[in-house]
């Protein structure tokens, strides 16, 4: 199965249930944000958001602005709401079961170093309610874990879910 976001393609192994979430069928984009893809594996859900400032028609100004927002943490706010709204939407649809949900963000910027990705992963984790309240009232986790990748680290860590750029 292949899912597409602009001219990036996510290839999934046969039998995996997955769908593009952030498209015209969403219907609530005026008030709720959405991650790009949702993948359901045997033991977990993956919420996948792709940020692609290197798409072919992006101007250098757009790229520069994105890099600044990303490195300064301004983008984390947007990423947080994308996760929360996607979770709520899927909950309302009854799509979620007891499987844990992992939130993965792929930033298509070739000059991002592992130090940048490590810092952004930690920052994103701080934005998400990964830990429950100390009272212990929570019955299930809202998000299991998260990570930020660039294209290279995604494809090296998750070779079974390759993302590649194709001609538009």
């Amino acid at each position, binding site marked *: 199965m292949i899912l597409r976001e602009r001219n990036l393609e996510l290839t999934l192994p046969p039998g995996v249930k997955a769908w593009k979430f952030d498209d015209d069928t969403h219907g609530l984009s005026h008030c709720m944000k959405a991650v790009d893809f949702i993948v359901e*594996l045997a033991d977990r859900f993956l919420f996948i958001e792709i940020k692609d400032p290197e798409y072919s028609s992006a101007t250098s100004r757009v790229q520069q602005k994105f890099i600044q927002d990303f490195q300064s943490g301004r983008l984390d706010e947007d990423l947080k709401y994308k996760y929360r709204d996607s979770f709520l939407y899927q909950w309302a649809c009854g799509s979620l079961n007891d499987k844990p949900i*992992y939130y993965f963000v792929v930033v298509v910027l070739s*000059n991002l*170093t*592992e130090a940048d990705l490590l810092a952004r992963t930690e920052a994103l984790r701080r934005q998400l309610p990964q830990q429950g309240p100390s009272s212990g009232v929570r019955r299930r986790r809202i998000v299991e*874990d998260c*990570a930020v990748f660039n294209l290279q680290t995604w494809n090296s860590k*998750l070779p079974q879910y390759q993302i590649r750029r194709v001609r538009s």
Partner: protein
Amino acid sequence: MTITRLKLERFTAFESLEVEFSPRVNIFLGTNGTGKTHLMKVVYAACDVTKSDRGFVEKLVRVFLPAEGAPGRLVKRYGQSTRCTIEVSRDGRKLSASFSNHTRVPASATVTGMRGWKEERIEAVYIPVKEMLANAPGFRSLYAQREIHFEEIYADIVDRALLPVRRGPVDARRRRLLEILQGAIEGRVHQENEQFFLRNRQGNLEFTLLAEGLRKLGLLWLLIQNGTLLEGSVLFWDEPEANLNPSLFKTLIEILLELARGGVQIFVATHDYLILKEFDLQKHEKEVLFHALYRDEETGEVQCRSVFSYVEIDPNAIAQAFASAYDREVERSLKGIR
């Protein structure tokens, strides 16, 4: 006139090393024991002798402090008779020194090029890892009168900090840098009887009561204010990140780059990713030369690879450490995904 090149043969950790320098900013990085500080001390000694009566090898001994003051102990250890050579170059001039592992006193070393080398003075400043201004009162006289086991860079930096303000107006660039630093340290530095204070609206705060990182910025303020760091001078800074909160790195690097653009040649040794990154983010093209020191896998000898581009630094010991941490972080996040 800037330092252009350093060549070492069989000196301390180095079998054979030749490094070309940028007239603006030079950054040394590498794992512990690859000789970053040694390189800076050699070049500093060569700069400092232009304005003192000390010989080059005597100054090397004073900044390296080998046992019994024997220059021979600075020769790379082979277990047999060996001779080291040191060559420092600046536009058209060369200062060389050579001595064997049996050399006991600086006067026995061979030094060439000193006369031409000293024709033009170089104002050089070496900021060591350990902050010294808080210990300044009485240190100079103690150092001058007694044999205390302190590398001379510590006495030198106190001397530089205590210099009175240079005559003449402060130019706009210096004034701007001073204002940036004043913002960071929230005051100005004031000196009385060799004791340093941070002066602001609340009064005078002794340097001993001030955070060590802020004392270092205070030192930089003094060196700019008293005119030590002017066009043609050379600044060496060993691990500027030490004791400084990373939130101040952006300001610090902005100041260092501005000094370099004003004609101060800068040498920095660092272990810190953010220091490197700030230089990378703020530099102009061909302004900062990164010198990666590493041990050759086959020979085990220290080598140096110099590049202007941050992404081309290879090997980058700091980035490798982050990559390892990132790999383990992602493994944790993936939790056995199939």
